[in-house]
């Protein structure tokens, strides 16, 4: 298995190049603005690059999509040979094996699942990117595009088509023998005997004529433009193809093989003698499939140590294989760079924490109380504060967006209102907000000069060195963000206390940065991310269980906080 990052980049570029405006619309759906789901395809592909094998329901949940819609898109991708899918009937046990595999790979995208016991032989679908095939598909597609344009350009190897103006019947030159009439020198339609007209090439079908010089020249120019445009615009993609050419393709194998492998890797990872939390290693073993009764299954995400994470990473995903240093022009293309994350996440983790105290006095206290483990509580609170912060920012943006886009706002606003009226706690809204962040994360950071914020980081790092050290270690372990969060959760209490003090200092600094940032974003308006559409918001609000939210929130906030802060801290 090779490094996966260049391939992910390839997928993302290809998604934006070719699947940007794919809509998967049912025939009977009204063509309102809300059902305009262009861009979903890109979002799904992006999400898949962050996962390996994933159950489609989980993916749908994570993306806040309807399973139906997701399936339709995935089926399309399957036809396009971008993803492999697997369907199987499985019981709760089968699901557990899969869960274990997911937990072992540590990609952390899966959510806590309480309903395992309820599944009784349901058919589940899984999907996964097929990198080897994607590489070929993209290459072939480019080849065909180029060939078609070139052929048209030289009007070589093209079979002339004829069309009957009266009955719109089409013929090709291969039918010529049947079409000639003994009386005049034109082709005649077989059904209506009308005179056929030569149809100019499909690419430039607007100028139907009998091919006099002018038309021909114009067509020629147009084709040439098309060709150069194509080469210009697809250059990043072609470059990426070239870069990926000699790399070993990451191969996940079939679903079963992957599960076995991931589980094995997870087990060895958990067996690591360095693990400093005794409870988690036993849990990890239990997940391997041995049917022993163990408690706290849903908390598995929280309980890994960093050492474990590292071990697993090497064995299962290999994201930490040495990466090429990317040229500067690539940095703005909207990818997760490990380096970047490394820099940005550090301050984030810290700043979230110190704000906690002030916010705790709010109504949310009750939510945190029921967590026994102090460390978890600490993290939760941190995340929560960050979420609030994000929400405020989002609302500001929302106001802007509403002003700018009159059409879509009404729908959005109404759904938001209903959400609140139903009596959902505001937490739920937070949850939604956070997911917005995930969408946005797919978008290219508009103008991030990495040099700039690295300077910021160093300043902050001095304030609390002990934290920073830890963080750096974890971050280097891999690009997957949840790992980082799990690590935090399992940390001994003492360090968090220390951290809290230093955070207070840091808070003041961060505040100034944050306000600057907010200003900057106001100026930018909502243009920051092409994927953040009002429709998306609506989609995301689709049904969640209240009960569900609590646990998922816990797990997710960790991820989200980080991403969000990455966002906030960008100068």
């Amino acid at each position: 298995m090779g490094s996966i990052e260049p391939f992910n980049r390839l997928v993302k570029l290809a998604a934006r190049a070719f699947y940007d405006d794919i809509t998967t619309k049912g025939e009977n759906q009204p063509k309102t603005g809300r059902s305009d789901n262009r861009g979903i395809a890109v979002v799904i592909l992006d999400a898949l690059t962050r996962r390996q094998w994933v159950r489609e329901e989980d993916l749908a949940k994570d993306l806040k999509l309807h399973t139906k819609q997701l399936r339709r898109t995935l089926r399309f991708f399957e036809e396009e040979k971008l993803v492999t899918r697997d369907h199987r009937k499985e019981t709760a046990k089968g699901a557990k094996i899969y869960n274990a595999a997911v937990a072992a790979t540590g990609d952390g995208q899966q959510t806590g699942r309480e309903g395992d016991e309820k599944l009784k032989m349901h058919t589940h679908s899984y999907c996964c990117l097929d990198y080897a095939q994607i590489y070929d598909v993209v290459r072939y597609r480019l080849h065909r595009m180029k060939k078609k344009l070139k052929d048209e350009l030289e009007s070589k190897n093209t079979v002339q088509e004829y069309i009957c103006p009266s009955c719109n019947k089409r013929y090709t030159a291969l039918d010529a023998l049947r079409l000639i009439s003994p009386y005049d020198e034109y082709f005649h339609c077989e059904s209506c005997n009308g005179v056929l007209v030569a149809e100019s090439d499909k690419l430039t079908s607007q100028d139907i004529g009998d091919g006099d010089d002018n038309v021909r020249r114009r067509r020629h120019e147009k084709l040439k433009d098309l060709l150069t445009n194509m080469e210009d615009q697809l250059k990043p993609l072609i470059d990426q193809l070239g870069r990926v050419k000699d790399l070993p393709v990451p191969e996940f194998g079939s679903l079963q093989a992957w599960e076995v492998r991931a589980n094995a890797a997870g087990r060895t990872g958990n067996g690591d003698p360095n693990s400093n939390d005794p409870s988690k290693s036993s849990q990890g073993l239990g997940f391997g499939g041995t049917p022993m009764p163990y408690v706290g299954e849903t908390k598995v995400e929280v309980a890994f140590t960093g050492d474990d994470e590292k071990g697993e990473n090497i064995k299962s995903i290999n994201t930490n294989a040495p990466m090429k240093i990317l040229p500067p022009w690539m940095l703005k293309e909207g990818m997760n760079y490990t380096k970047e994350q490394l820099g940005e996440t550090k301050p984030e983790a810290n700043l979230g924490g110190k704000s906690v105290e002030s916010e705790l006095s709010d109504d949310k206290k009750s939510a945190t109380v029921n967590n026994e483990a102090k460390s978890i509580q600490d993290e939760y609170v941190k995340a929560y504060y960050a979420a609030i912060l994000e929400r405020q920012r989002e609302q500001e943006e929302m106001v802007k967006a509403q002003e700018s886009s009159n059409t879509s706002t009404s729908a959005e606003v109404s759904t938001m209102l209903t959400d609140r009226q139903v009596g959902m706690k505001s937490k739920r809204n937070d949850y939604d907000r956070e997911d917005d962040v995930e969408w946005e994360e797919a978008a290219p950071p508009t103008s991030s000069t990495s040099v700039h914020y690295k300077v910021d980081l160093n300043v902050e790092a001095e304030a609390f060195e002990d934290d920073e050290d830890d963080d750096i270690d974890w971050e280097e372990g891999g690009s997957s963000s949840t790992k980082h969060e799990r690590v935090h959760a399992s940390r001994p209490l003492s360090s968090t206390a220390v951290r809290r003090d230093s955070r207070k200092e840091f808070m003041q600094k961060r505040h100034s940065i944050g306000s600057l940032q907010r200003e900057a974003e106001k100026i930018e308006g909502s243009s920051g991310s092409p994927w953040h559409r009002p429709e998306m918001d609506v989609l995301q609000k689709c049904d969640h269980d209240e009960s569900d939210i609590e646990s998922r929130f816990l797990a997710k906030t960790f991820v989200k906080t980080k991403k969000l802060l990455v966002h906030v801290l960008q100068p």
Partner: protein
Amino acid sequence: MFFHIVLERNMQLHPRHFGRDLRDKIVSKLMKDVEGTCSGRHGFIVAITGIESVGKGLIRDGTGFVTFPVKYQCVVFRPFKGEVVEAVVTMVNKMGFFAEAGPVQIFVSNHLIPDDMEFQSGDMPNYTTSDGSVKIQKDSEVRLKIIGTRVDATEIFCIGTIKDDFLGVISDPGATS
């Protein structure tokens, strides 16, 4: 492209041919039946060059006809995409021209004729360059490249182009006179 291949066919022979020259009868009937036909798979059967074997005859109940499985060698002609052939122009019209390369009909549409050749209608419709040096009319010989084939069960039709290097009228003074 021409191929020399072995094909097999079941020949039905009337009882009246049974006699000393039964074999010759089979061969002559085979030639009459097969030569000049076209199969989508092998192309046009141009000529039979020899008989490989004649199997045991099977008498049909009721009719008295006898069926012999015959293996024979033959030359077949099958046009391929990308192949360059020489052909004789049979008809010229505004849409292009038709030509024949042996048994195969080829159509060259006007957008696959070089841009400098113009259609001239009249008694003898033709395509002529602006300086009049090259003229494509009925019975001209052209070299063309096949760019598409339509193969039916009993028919092969091709479209060709002369818009490429070394294609067009074959300027052999003896041939065009």
